[in-house]
């Protein structure tokens, strides 16, 4: 049986292959990455794109939600102050309706209520980072303006538009309540109408008590209405926090999944590297031993 005289060449080829193998394993170990090219694991590469996409979306939502939380908190505190002011106005009006006051006392009540009205107006025109938060979507200019007429009227120049923030799992969180809905509600829920009426009532010398009482009642129900509107803002805040937490934990899980998909298993790679190096050494010894002598060396 004949043998290939150049088999040492094949051994050298095998040695090259073993060295290449060692090189690849060392680079995998040093970079810590298992999937260094698309062909190393095509499915993992594809899966990786989707995981990174999801992780980046979660990241972006976390940042947006802290932005939005700030805005909602400003709205919430503004409405809280409005409630405080209106409570004060109600107690002033009630005291003016008990029949013990004279015209000048009632005038001073009217002035105080006008002051409260100005405060509430300023709060209704709150802005956050240059945009008016109770204006719906026309938020580049103040939504509420007080006319100079007597009795004064308040006009709303915003719209009814509500913005929503979409969470990564599709939930929609309300970001604002239009000012007209809070302050200019239908019927007895109109804060400004009630305040304007009361100011008008107490400014006249002869107050129509029945009118004043019904206006005070209207103010009371408007106050409750404002409190209710505040609840939807608080709800949004709660939802944002919950969504943010859910997204954070999802991100942790995704990070773990992506890491285990793409990162090298250090123990396994180290073992393979050690085996490859052993093989290399063995091949080198074999090649050295076999040498390239022939029968010619033995003949004289």
């Amino acid at each position: 049986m004949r043998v290939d005289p150049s088999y040492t060449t094949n051994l050298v080829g095998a040695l090259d292959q073993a060295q290449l193998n060692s090189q690849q394993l060392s680079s995998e170990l040093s970079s810590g990455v298992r999937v260094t090219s698309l062909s190393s694991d095509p499915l993992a590469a594809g899966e990786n794109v989707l995981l990174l996409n999801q992780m980046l979306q979660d990241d972006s939502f976390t940042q947006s939600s802290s932005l939005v939380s700030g805005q909602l908190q400003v709205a919430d505190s503004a409405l809280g102050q409005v409630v405080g002011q209106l409570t004060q106005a109600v107690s002033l009006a009630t005291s003016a309706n008990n029949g013990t006051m004279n015209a000048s006392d009632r005038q001073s009540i009217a002035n105080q209520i006008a002051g409260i009205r100005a405060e509430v107006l300023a709060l209704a025109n709150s802005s956050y980072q240059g945009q008016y938060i109770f204006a719906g979507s026309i938020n580049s200019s103040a939504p509420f303006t007080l006319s100079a007429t007597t009795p004064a009227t308040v006009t709303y120049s915003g719209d009814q538009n509500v913005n929503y923030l979409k969470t990564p799992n599709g939930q929609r969180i309300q970001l604002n309540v239009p000012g007209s809905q809070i302050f200019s509600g239908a019927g007895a829920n109109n804060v400004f109408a009630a305040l304007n009426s009361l100011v008008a009532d107490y400014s006249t010398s002869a107050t129509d008590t029945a009118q004043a009482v019904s206006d005070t009642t209207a103010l009371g129900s408007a106050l409750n209405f404002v409190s209710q509107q505040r609840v939807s803002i608080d709800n949004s805040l709660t939802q944002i926090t919950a969504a943010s937490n859910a997204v954070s934990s999802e991100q942790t899980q995704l990070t773990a999944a992506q890491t285990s998909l793409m990162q090298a298993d250090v123990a396994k790679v180290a073992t393979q590297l050690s085996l490859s190096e052993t093989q290399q050494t063995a091949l080198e010894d074999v090649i050295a031993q076999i040498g390239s002598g022939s029968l010619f060396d033995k003949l004289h």
Partner: protein
Amino acid sequence: MGTISSAFSIITGALNADQGGLSIIAGNVANANTPGYSRETPNWVENSPIVINGHTYGAGVTETGATAVRDRVLEQRLDQQQQLASSSGTRLAALNTLQALFTPDSGSASATAGDIGNDITSFFNSFASLEANPGDNALRQQVLSTASTLAGDISNAASSVNMQRSALDQEAAGVATQVNALTASIAKLNLQIQSFSPTGDAGSLEDQRQQDLSQLSQLIGINQVTTENNGLTITTTSGQTLVSEGESNVLTTGKVNGVTDFFVGGTDVTAQTESGGGSLGGYLTARDQDIPTVLGALDQMAFGISTEVNAQNAKGIDLNGNAGAAIFVQPQQAAGAAETMSVAMTDPSQIAAAAAGAGSGDNSNATAMADLATSGDPPILNGLVLPGGLALAAGQTLLGGLTPSGYYSGFVTTLGSTVSQVQTENTAQNASVVQLQTQNNALSQVNLNDEASAMTTLERSYQAASQVFSMINTLMAAALNLGEQSTVA
């Protein structure tokens, strides 16, 4: 005739024959490392015996030359396997360069520069961020800068792929020159072999021809047909004649539609050469199959994203109260959209975050833009009229019903699988080549041990013959001196 002088001539013949044998062995040892050399063995032929008056007298031995030890069938099989290995090897090299453009991002933190998948996500995330505060200029600027990064990376990838295509084109054209040189050489050798040894093995000429054939089969897919008088006809795997007897046909190149095509005579053989094997086959497969697939996917992605985003922006109102302008330069068709993808909008206030009819603080159009990343069939596509005038039917999408990230994910998986498959094929084919090469070497390569023992044998037989010669010489002298004392010793 059984005389002493005839014995002389027989032994002289033997000495010559042994010398001839030794020179052949010397030739073998001298050429032990010559590539393509097949070891030669001497031919010993017994001379025809002479019959005189019914008595037969032997006439000795003649060494009639050398025969090269080769197995034509084995060599052909080796050539065919080298064709395949060379083809897949060349294609693999091209594919590795191609896939290096899309190396997966292994980090899990923020986006790695240049990764298209992350760019897509960051771009659509900028709209999601805009939902929180549509009037914020910094967030709007972010939309434009992520758009610009996305367009830049996609167009860079596309132009790299196009550059690779030209490089492959040039390399393929270069192969044609080498092929022509080899076919010309084989044709010449054919003539020489046919005139020199039409019936037997042609020794070193045959070796040279086999070397040329081996190199040729690594370049282009060929079929070999042995003809009469030791001739060889070589055709491409699809049947075009490259070499016939002493004539060789030139493989010419010419530009067709911007790429190099190959012709034999007047026939365009590009498509057949692509599937034929050899490195030319590998280059052409990479150029005409793999690269168009990748470019097609990039183009479709660029076209889909640009068109959807522009259409959705046009549906909304920007900060100035106008309908949204185009964010990306609108491509007219998918072909070529990737390389020319760029951002047209420079003023961030033109991003239409608000829906039509709402004030500028509305974010519903920004939400719709962000939804383009999560929906495979967003509402904007329903009935959308493409730049060519074609309107999309219900349910028809630009990205195969996938989200942009999903489309990119599918693309990288497909590319990775192709490369992986070619890698496996190439490894298997290389192993097969090594095996066949080993077999061929075992048969045809000079084994110094064999030569040493053959040399020793011939040496001994030469020694023996020369001993016989001196003995016959003594006999001759004795015969001449029959009975007489003389000077002849």
